[in-house]
């Protein structure tokens, strides 16, 4: 991976003493993702997932030092929606707790920082999204520049399609290759009991050309949770912790017209900062809701054919908004835990056309 700096990459200073504390994913749980979970509230959706993840770690809620969650009011259609989800946590006696209004991968980042400070030994991270509540394509238009862009209601598929066409025009892919990405993802998802789409899905008609319906993620309701722990606590709680060797996230300009949509310099920069380039990874879980975005991320991150991409099926097989990125970290950790990977890259994204990107590098114990 070459060091192509982002626009402002030269300026941030690396501290004298880099983060030194060992922190690992010690448990991961997710719901069985579905198109519509109308029968359950968000708290009811989350409850079994939290019980599962705490059970894996052998911890009770009260034994967790820090809790952080990710969700979106706009997805839920209600202000302060996360306050009711807290019901499923059992926050009594009171807990040290925070919330990010974005994908749970950033909640995990906040929890990782908390553990790095030494103020916590364990952290619970969770995220959930009932994408079925609203029309996701329309809801996501509210993320866009409220003066010049949001009034045109360009939906999320349309924006991804603009990006995909730019990629095709650049000679980086074609519709058949994109169909291949989609097919591989759903085929891999057949081995993922939590995935929503498993096995062949028709490439289908154009959703917004050049993207076919098969290039787009399903609309998914679901939740996920991770337990993090530091050092010997992690070793005590888990036979094979997935150690977070580095984690970073970066942002790009908001305007699509000022960005090179065929590239993801912020993902590349985050990967460099997370130490992904020091040694090759064998696995990458990429948060690429659209097939074309997987192509962009592979190019930006210089992931060659030796790297196993999205063995879980990725976001094309289940896309519970606000949890999808956290699930990438969980899936990568689980492969390390099973011994299927020695060093994995997990990626999460937020915003239109991959505006924000987070990269974590995970490894098993050296053997």
């Amino acid at each position, binding site marked *: 991976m070459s060091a192509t700096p982002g626009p402002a990459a030269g300026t941030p200073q690396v501290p004298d003493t880099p*983060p030194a*504390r060992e922190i690992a994913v010690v448990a991961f749980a997710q719901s069985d993702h579905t198109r519509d979970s109308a029968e359950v509230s968000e708290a009811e959706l989350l409850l079994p997932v939290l019980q599962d993840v705490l059970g894996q770690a052998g911890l009770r809620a009260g034994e967790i030092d820090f809790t952080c969650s990710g969700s979106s009011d706009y997805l839920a259609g209600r202000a302060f929606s996360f306050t009711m989800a807290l019901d499923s946590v059992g*926050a009594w006696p009171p807990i*040290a707790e*925070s919330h990010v209004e974005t994908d749970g991968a950033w909640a995990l980042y906040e929890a990782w*920082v908390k553990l790095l400070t030494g103020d916590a030994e364990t952290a619970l991270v969770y995220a959930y999204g009932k994408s079925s509540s609203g029309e996701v394509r329309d*809801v996501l238009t509210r993320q*866009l520049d409220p003066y010049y862009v*949001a009034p045109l209601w360009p939906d999320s598929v349309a924006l991804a399609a603009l990006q995909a066409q730019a990629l095709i025009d650049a000679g980086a892919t074609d519709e058949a290759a994109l169909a291949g990405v989609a097919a591989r993802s759903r085929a891999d998802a057949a081995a993922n009991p939590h995935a929503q789409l498993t096995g062949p899905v028709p490439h289908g008609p154009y959703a917004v050309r050049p993207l076919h319906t098969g290039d787009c993620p399903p609309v998914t309701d679901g939740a996920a949770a991770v337990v993090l722990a530091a050092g010997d606590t992690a070793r005590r709680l888990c036979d094979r912790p997935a150690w977070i060797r580095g984690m970073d996230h970066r942002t790009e300009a908001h305007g699509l017209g000022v960005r090179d949509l065929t590239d993801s310099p912020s993902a590349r920069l985050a990967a460099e900062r997370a130490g992904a380039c020091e040694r090759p990874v064998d696995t990458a879980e990429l948060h690429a809701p659209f097939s074309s975005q997987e192509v962009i991320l592979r190019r930006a991150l210089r992931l060659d054919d030796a790297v196993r991409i999205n063995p879980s099926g990725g976001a094309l097989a289940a896309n519970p908004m606000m949890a999808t990125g956290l699930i990438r970290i969980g899936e990568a950790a689980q492969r390390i835990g099973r011994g299927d990977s020695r060093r994995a890259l997990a990626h999460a994204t937020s915003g239109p056309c991959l505006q924000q990107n987070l990269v974590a590098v995970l490894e098993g114990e050296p053997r």
Partner: protein
Amino acid sequence: MSSAAGTTKEPVAIVGIGQTRHVAARRDVSIAGLVREAAQRALQDAELTWQDIDAVVIGKAPDFFEGVMMPELYLADALGAVGKPLLRVHTAGSVGGSTALVAADLVAARVHRTVLTLAFEKQSESNAMWGLSLPVPFQQPLLAGAGGFFAPHVRAYMRRTGAPATVGSLVAYKDRRNALKNPYAHLHEHDLTLEKVQASPMLWDPVRYSETCPSSDGACAMVLTDRAGARRAPRPAAWVHGGAMRSEPTLFAGKDFVSPQAGKDCAAAVYRQAGITDPRREIDAVEMYVPFSWYEPMWLENLGFAAPGEGWKLTESGVTELDGDLPVNPSGGVLSANPIGASGMIRFAEAALQVRGQAGEHQVPGARRALGHAYGGGSQFFSMWVVGADAPGA
């Protein structure tokens, strides 16, 4: 390494503070322009440029308040965040405080050296009551408006403590007079008298109009940095001596709305970190989140400044006045400016201004340690920090 022993935290310094002049409606700026104004002032205070900032942490209350989902995405350019980490926090009304604490952790963990943190609300883009009372099916409509949520708890406090009915008006009068000394405060009611407060309409009995907070557009920003950054700072730094967040469920059997356990625990945690055993004597100024005047005596008890049932006596005896021995909300507080998402950060920033000696006309003379306090949701989310004029351990 398995314990915190090898990871002594980096001390965190506040070297830049900026806020907007809070008003009902800032019709001259965009959302970006509003946030940017506070950020620019914080950078100027620290004599730093956008290039000196390693990461940005931003907070605000619900996205529905401005009708922009995850507005940090649109704000990335205005916040100089292109190519940098940009993290959005949302913990209801406590968010301004929580956001600052997340930013402080980035420095404390040595992930970054210099972090810009901001919080804002541009309430004039919509209507907070609309955002809070979306017509959710199957639910009883909110029967009482914003104050109706708080007023019954005030009555419960009065019943529990026997506080005289005038205490709330004393707080409102004090805070509005303090606001006259704060150029950034929204309300500058030069002609206000205690009699006028006490004669103002009873909105949600026992809460009067003059005892409620305004609705404001505003933003607040701070530059946090490490020891090296503090050494280079042109003006005195404030140092974080303790910071904590605590949450409890929204509604539950046994919840004490008058003095929530999460608030007590949060205060205990920050005092422990700061080595404070007697907050009443060891803290020189308090900026607490008082959206309705009666919350001052309630929080005085919750935060350990007074024994249960005694908080109102501190207020009544003038202890919390600007020239009292425990000044509370020298800035005028939330009662004088309430850009919701920013209000918590303003408390944190005003506490820091006090120990930096930079609070201007509302400076508490000789303030060495101050508490910043924020809370939100159903009195369930708390975030606090204790800041000092000296580096921790110095």
